[in-house]
């Protein structure tokens, strides 16, 4: 039964990858990366049980905790960039 779920997760990862490669906007790629992260957590949990080594769930736990940081970094990146753009527009307005 685990195999069915693993297969579904893998196919979903493939679909998410298509979305990440096709885009079109950068946000679509971030969305795909986020999806990929959750799917990886599920995949790792299932494989830990498939291998009969449930003590390796630590890995899935690490991803569940840390994956979040990537998306926040993206948010901060866009915020800083838009702030800089506002500042540039302001300076241009001054010089004109």
């Amino acid at each position: 039964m685990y195999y069915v779920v693993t297969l579904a997760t893998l196919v979903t990862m493939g679909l998410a990858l298509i979305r990440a490669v096709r885009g079109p906007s950068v946000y679509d790629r971030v969305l795909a990366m986020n999806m990929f992260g959750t799917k990886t957590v599920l995949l790792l949990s299932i494989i830990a049980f498939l291998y009969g080594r449930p003590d390796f769930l630590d890995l899935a736990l690490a991803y569940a905790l840390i994956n979040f940081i990537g998306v926040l970094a993206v948010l901060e990146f866009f915020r800083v960039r838009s702030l800089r753009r506002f500042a540039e527009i302001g300076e241009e307005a001054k010089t004109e």
Partner: protein
Amino acid sequence: MTTLLDVLSWVLLTLGGISVLIGGIGALRMPDLYTRMHAASVTDSMGAILVLGGIMLQAGWSLATIKLIAILLFLLLTSPTSSNALASAALLAGTRPIAERKQDREETP
């Protein structure tokens, strides 16, 4: 009793697999960013609950179950939050939902 638990966990796992797959198809086929995000994030949470719940029933009472509960808890916290963060970043950057764009087109023919 074990058979009952087995059947229940299989049902949960299958439903989880279907839910995950629907999310993947939705993220690929939906027309714009926000609808894709909707498809992906809703099924993310649902799929995580179902799949991890199914595994929990298989694991029984052990340290593994506690870890699974922790994983589920953190996933349920972080996954919607990152969707929210992403949506607000996209909205701030000026990406507009498709429904709004359609409305505009109808108002200004």
